[in-house]
């Protein structure tokens, strides 16, 4: 899941200041799960913007819509016919959603209301943690499904570093030591033998240095 947090209202207000007719567009997927851009959050932001304008004596019109998914054309198409009625679309989608809207509706001003944060997991109600850097070269199979790139502060492939205390990382006493987890889980699974291997550095060329990545599959194309 892609996580995000709402921008401060002051920043949103500054962005939308020149516009009168605003459509707040949420996304019912990842950002709904992390309670930053779903239907409820669309309602909260729209209400806040309307009340804020009322308090300042400004006349604006703020409407609401939540798409199932803001990064897929078939869902974005629900906005066709609506966008022309607004000066601006204030997106509560992730960065991919904002850019997808802008691709489909060229010439329409699309503004982000969220700061996209990371790929994460809902650890518990109200707690989301980063556990994937989308490196493009997944090694979870060797490390008991604990990503050392993301969850080890030092990104060690051949850990542990020796700095952990009581199973917690020395850089953050709230964060579990990734290598402690890896060793405990491999031990439970009877696969400590995997630790005999020496793992080479990650192949970062799969993530960086070539511009935006893409996946193209002929079998999925029409």
């Amino acid at each position, binding site marked *: 899941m892609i996580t995000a947090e709402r921008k401060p209202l002051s920043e949103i207000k500054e962005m939308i200041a020149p516009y009168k007719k605003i459509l707040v567009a949420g996304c019912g997927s990842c950002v709904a799960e992390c309670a930053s851009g779903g239907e409820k959050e669309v309602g909260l932001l729209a209400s806040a913007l*309307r009340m*804020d304008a009322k*308090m300042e004596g400004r006349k604006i019109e703020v409407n609401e819509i939540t798409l*199932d998914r803001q990064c897929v054309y078939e869902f974005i198409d629900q906005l066709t016919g609506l966008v022309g009625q607004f000066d601006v679309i204030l997106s509560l989608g992730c960065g991919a959603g904002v850019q997808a809207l802008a691709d489909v509706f060229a010439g329409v001003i699309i503004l982000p209301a969220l700061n996209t944060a990371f790929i994460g997991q809902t650890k518990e109600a109200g707690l989301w943690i980063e556990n994937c850097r989308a490196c493009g070269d997944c090694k979870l199979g060797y490390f008991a499904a604990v990503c050392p790139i993301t969850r080890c502060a030092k990104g060690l492939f051949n850990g542990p570093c020796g700095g952990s205390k009581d199973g917690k990382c020395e850089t953050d006493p709230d964060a579990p030591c990734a290598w402690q987890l890896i060793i405990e889980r491999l031990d439970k699974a009877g696969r400590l033998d995997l630790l005999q291997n020496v793992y080479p550095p990650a192949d970062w060329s799969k993530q960086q240095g070539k511009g935006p990545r893409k996946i193209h599959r002929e079998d999925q194309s029409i």
Partner: protein
Amino acid sequence: MDQKSAGLNITIFFCQQLDANQDANRRVLERELGSRIKFFPLPCSGRIEPLHLLRALETGADRVYLIICPEGACRYREGNLRARKRLAFAQGLIEEIGLEPQRLELIQTTQGDQLTIDQRAHDLLARKAAFGPNPAKLQGSRGQANNARTLEPMNPGTPDVYQGVHYDYSGKKTFI
């Protein structure tokens, strides 16, 4: 001057476990004050969402109260604890737009307190009016049938598009 005499609009969200006859007990006050008082019984105060509280302010409430069960006495164990956190979140949101956070207030009842919902409402109405009318509420937003607002067409010629319209996933429109 008390809140009733000041003519303030009061919205009360409350856990209906607090008063088994809440449905009947609130009728007299509802008839007397009409749209100036609105009761929203909740199956548990943990059902409250920050959005409910903001919508109440936006659609005309001057003060919004959330009445919850005594600590440790929630029928569903933690509903009142969640209600407290959600109200605090909503307070942060309205503070961001310059509205007094105290316009949203949590009322935690105490063990052994057997007051009915109308008695509690009378107590709240008798409180001193610490705030005037809510400057953020939209005009003409209270007192409409079924809680609806008079909505101005956003674009003349496209009368089905209104301020405050919500389009759901299927494109169906509902008025808020």
